[in-house]
Every structure is written in structure tokens, then in C-alpha cells.
């Protein structure tokens, strides 16, 4: 930022994945039109998925995925020790994500169902912040590359970062979409944090709340409106459970 009289350094970055689909890491390689410039901001010290070089002198750790095995806990703690800034990215890292659905079943049943009698270690799924301190979260399943880019540029230029506080409906209406409630579906848009550009509702499927709750949501009124539209509360519950983002609201009413 020469015009302000200070220079920017490349960010020494490491990217790490835990229990997840690695879709968020993949996003980093998307948005090809700005990819070379994006990579230019970074000094990639450790990123198994794209590079064989591995160093342990990164400042910023991007952590993807949730924690579901004891060796993952150790690996994560080592990363926390090294990183000056630890960013949880993706809904798995921020909320547990779809992986958490398994927590609704007894662990033995899970293992037996898939592996029969072979012993396989698995712990109840936890979010990154359940295990170590997280400095910043970028939610989304997957994260939006545009948002990641904005945040990385902000870190590189010493600017403060923030996420939208309002819900998805704002962005949905800006796309002139027909509201899914009008089409007879339960949509979590009114209570979910915006920033994805309402990608799901623009594709005419309901928002499943992957970005977690918006600030200060009115859960009670949301529940009422689902009832008043004659829609199924079971469907709503299933959607609220999907990414494990609305745990704190689930037992509001029975």
C-alpha cells in the first residue's frame, strides 16, 4: 500500500485439512481469472493438496474440516502452536458441518454399519473451536472463493475483516428470486448469514443454512412462519440439523 506509505508482505500460509471433503481447499484453486494474482499474495509453506514442499514456518493456518479422531486433535494443536492466525474455513471447521449428522447415531452402530467387525477409531465430531482457539471463521459449504479472496487481501493489506451480519434473504431478493416459501418450501434464508450471494435459492433450492445463523436472528418468528405457511416442522428440523449450525436454537420450543 505504497500510497499510504507501508508495504505488504506475502502471507506465509499453510493449509490443513481434517475430517471433510476438501471442497473448500479446492475452492482456493477456483476463480481462475484472478488465481495467479491470488497465489502471488501467498507464500505457500505447507499445502499438501497442491504442493510437495512442506515447511513449518507458516504464520497463517487455514484449517478445513472437523475433528473426529484423536490424532487429529494432536495435529491441530501443533498447528495452533505454530500459527499466529488460525482461520477455520468451511462449515465443517466452523460448525462441524454435515459430518456432525453422525453424532445422532451411536458410535458403535456407525462403525458396525460400515466396517462390520473391523475396529475403526472415531470420536463424536467436533468443530475446530471446540479444540483450539480460532481467530477467524469463514463459513460456507463450500466457502465462497470470492469471500476467501476478499479476506486474504484484507489480511495482506492490514485491513480489518468482517462478514455480513444480515441474512441471506437480502442477497436473494437482490437476485430477484421467487421466494421459496412462495413455492412451498422451507428455506433457512431468513436466519442464515449472508455472503454466499444466495447461491442456493438462486438455483431454486432451499437454503440449508451452511453459513450459520445471522446476527441476532428471530428464531421464534421463523418457526411461527413455517407453521403459518402450512409447511412441515420436520422438514425445518431436518434442514436446521443439516450442517449443525443451529444447535443453540433447536430446543427453543418443542
Amino acid at each position: 500500500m505504497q500510497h499510504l506509505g507501508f508495504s505488504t508482505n506475502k502471507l506465509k500460509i499453510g493449509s490443513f485439512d481434517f475430517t471433510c471433503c476438501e471442497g473448500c481447499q479446492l475452492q482456493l484453486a477456483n476463480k481462475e481469472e484472478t488465481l495467479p494474482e491470488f497465489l502471488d499474495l501467498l507464500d505457500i509453506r505447507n499445502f499438501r493438496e497442491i504442493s510437495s514442499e512442506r515447511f513449518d514456518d507458516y504464520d497463517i493456518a487455514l484449517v478445513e474440516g472437523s475433528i473426529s479422531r484423536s490424532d487429529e486433535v494432536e495435529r491441530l494443536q501443533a498447528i495452533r502452536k505454530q500459527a499466529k492466525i488460525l482461520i477455520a474455513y468451511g462449515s465443517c471447521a466452523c460448525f462441524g458441518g454435515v459430518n456432525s449428522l453422525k453424532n445422532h447415531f451411536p458410535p458403535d452402530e456407525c462403525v458396525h454399519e460400515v466396517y462390520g467387525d473391523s475396529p475403526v477409531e472415531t470420536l463424536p465430531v467436533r468443530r475446530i473451536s471446540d479444540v483450539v482457539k480460532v481467530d477467524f471463521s469463514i463459513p460456507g459449504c463450500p466457502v465462497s472463493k470470492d469471500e476467501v479472496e476478499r479476506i486474504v487481501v484484507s489480511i495482506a493489506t492490514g485491513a480489518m475483516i468482517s462478514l455480513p451480519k444480515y441474512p441471506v434473504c437480502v442477497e436473494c431478493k437482490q437476485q430477484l428470486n421467487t421466494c421459496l416459501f412462495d413455492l412451498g418450501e422451507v428455506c433457512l434464508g431468513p436466519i442464515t448469514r449472508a455472503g454466499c450471494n444466495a447461491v442456493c435459492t438462486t438455483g431454486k433450492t432451499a437454503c440449508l443454512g451452511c453459513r450459520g445463523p445471522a446476527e441476532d436472528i428471530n428464531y421464534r418468528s421463523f418457526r411461527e412462519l413455517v407453521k403459518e405457511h402450512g409447511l412441515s416442522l420436520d422438514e425445518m428440523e431436518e434442514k436446521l440439523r443439516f450442517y449443525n449450525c443451529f444447535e443453540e436454537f433447536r430446543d427453543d420450543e418443542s
Partner: protein
Amino acid sequence: MTKVNCSIDVHHLTRVEGHGNIHIDIRNGELVDAKWAVVETPRFFEVMVKTMSPARVPFLTSRICGICSISHSLASIRSLERAMEISPPPAAEKLRLLAMHGETLQSHALHIFFLAVPDFVDTPSVIPLVESHPHIVQAGLRLKAAGNAISELVTGRCTHPVSLVLGGVSKAPDKEKLEALRAQLDAVRADLDTTAEFCSTLQIPSFVRETEFVSLRNGNTYPAIGGDLVSTDGVRRDENDYLAMTNEYKPEFTTTKFTRLSRGSFAAGALARFNNNVDLLRPEAVSVARQFGLEPVNHNPFMNNIAQLVECVHIVHDAIDLIDDLLDDPLNELKTPWKPKEGAATGAVEAPRGILYHHMEVDRHGTVCRGDCIIPTTQNNANIHHDLAALARQAADEGKDDQEIRQLCEMLVRAYDPCISCSVH
């Protein structure tokens, strides 16, 4: 001179999707141990689908894999549609095929340029290539971008599709955008030529181990969604017979399962599709294959990289035709209404890395009560494992040093383009 001792341990192989380890041990010229071990954390998707409404399932299963989410979504959709006897409208089928093309194109481009090529030019990642081979990287990025553009337009975004739903697709792509996409695909044809030219300069290791190749085949089009299950050893089965085609078992040293058919192991993926369906490829693609001397049945696993390139050529041309078709279609019937219904069926699709099976069972309450997913990498694991042993033995016989053997082994695993997190779902 024969090399006597060699011990290789690759912990968390890089430039692959997911976590896997290679372990090779040669003592006194004898191969003691060769292992391909997957150390990914299991996520239990098959358990998660239980009690879920069918409508939600494709959104869940797409999260099995960040690279081939469209395939997973479509495999679930196909199995559930077959289970509940839903037939999607023809326009939706075309859009789904186009979406598959998009995913395969971006996945292959990512693999060829980001994951495989650095090995051939001996760099740790694609990043130094930005400086040394700018036009190749640019071509790769444009091909990948084109793949992503297809997925984005047809399914709403490039990873984890939003508009692929049971009964069809939820939203028609905008015609103006389809036209723009067509132009974009037209333009990347030149990039395919550049890539083919560049690839012909690469030294593909000569290694052959006879194996069986398994893929889908429907007899009309190059395989993508549904069809018979066939192998180069002459097996042919119905889609629902997927279990007889895979025969899963779990070895001790890995969390993933292995599979076998007529032999100890078999391979799936671009090379398998090519070996079984060369007659259905577009002529443009066949001529590229010929340029590389690729002919069925090819048993060199490293040629999988080339088979991927051949498929890219096929896809770009086929996608252009599909778009022309869609531009003439009014696209007003995209979704068949449906009600949950009891039933069970398999949905098989050709994911970028090979044949992918989802088998779903819906109970009489209309909820899913059982799910089973068999992933291409799972099917390839055993083949990788056996290839590693053969390759290490051959390399050791040729007197290569540890570093060279290690490099070759890594390249071999990467050539399969394994998707490990997906295989441990």
C-alpha cells in the same frame, strides 16, 4: 546391477485429494512389503443417510467429495429415482449430462496441470510453472475455468451443486449465458491442442502390469450416467448388480476397503472408460489418443493421464453439441413431480476417477433406510497396491536409487488421481 535394499515411506502423499501413505520395503533384492495405505478419517455417510428424506440425500452425498460432488449428487439422484420410479424429463437429463461434463473437465484439468505435470517437469508444485511454462498454465487454467463455468451455469456453482434435484433440475440455465458458455468452450479448443502438444513432450514411464478394467457402458454414448457394468475381461452385469462387480473387503492396514472382480484387483477411471468404450468417443478425441499411441486395451497406469486428456477433448466437443441442443429446447419442463415411495436401486455414474455406485433403499414411510456408496478410488486401491509392488520391483531391478523409486511410486499413485477422502466417506 540389481539394487539390494530399499525402504520408502511417504507419509501423507502430496498433490492428491485426501491422506494416504506409501510404504515399500525391499531387502536383499526381495520385495518384503509394498503398501498403499489410506489414513483418512471415516465420516460414515452411509449411516447419515438413514432417516433422511430422499430429497435431502443428494445434497448430503455431494459432500462426500469436494472434487466430484456432481457425480455423487447424480449417483444418489439416479439410485433414488430408480428406487422410487421417477423419470426425469429429457431436458433435465441433458442438463445433468452437461453438468457431468463440466465436473470431469475441471477435475481432469486440475489433475493434469496441478497435480500430475509438476512430477514430469520435476517441480514441487504448479506454482514455479507459472514462471517457467506460462502458456501451459494459462491453457490449463482456461480449461479448468471452462469446466467450472459449465458446472456453475448448469448446477448453480462448481462445487456442491445446488440445482440438481430428485425429479430433474430445479432451474433452467439462462439462454444468453448458455450462448456465452458455448463461445467459451469453442475458445478452449485451442488450449486442448496446446496441452496435447505439451503432453507429447513428457516422458511417460514405461510400466505395464496386466489388469482388468471396469467401467459403465450403455452402447450409445460415451459413459456418464447409468448403463451396464462391463470389464475388459468380458464381464457384463446389470447396474443393480454392483455388489457382484465390486466384492468389497477390508485389509488390516487401511481404513478404506479393497475390491476385486475376475482377478486380484481391477482398475476404474479414464483409462478404464477408454479401454471399454473407445468406439463411442468423438473422432477428435480418438485422433488425440492415436497421437499418443493409446489404444485399447492399454495396461500402463501412467497412461491414465493421457486418457484424461483424451476425455477432455471428447467433453469439450460433446458439450458444445449438447449446448446447441439445449439452445433449441424451450427448457420449460425440467422437473417431474414425485412422491416418496418404497423401493431400492443402484445408481451408477462415471465420476472423473471412475465408476461410482450409490445404492439407496427407501422404506414405506418414504425415508431412506439404507445407503451404500462404493467410490472409484476404493475400487482402485487394490490395483494401486499391486501396481506399487510391481513397479518397485521393476525399478529396483533396473537399479534405480531410493529417491528415484520413491518418485516413481508417488507418480504412479497420482496417475490414478486418487480421491482418498472420498474413498473413506
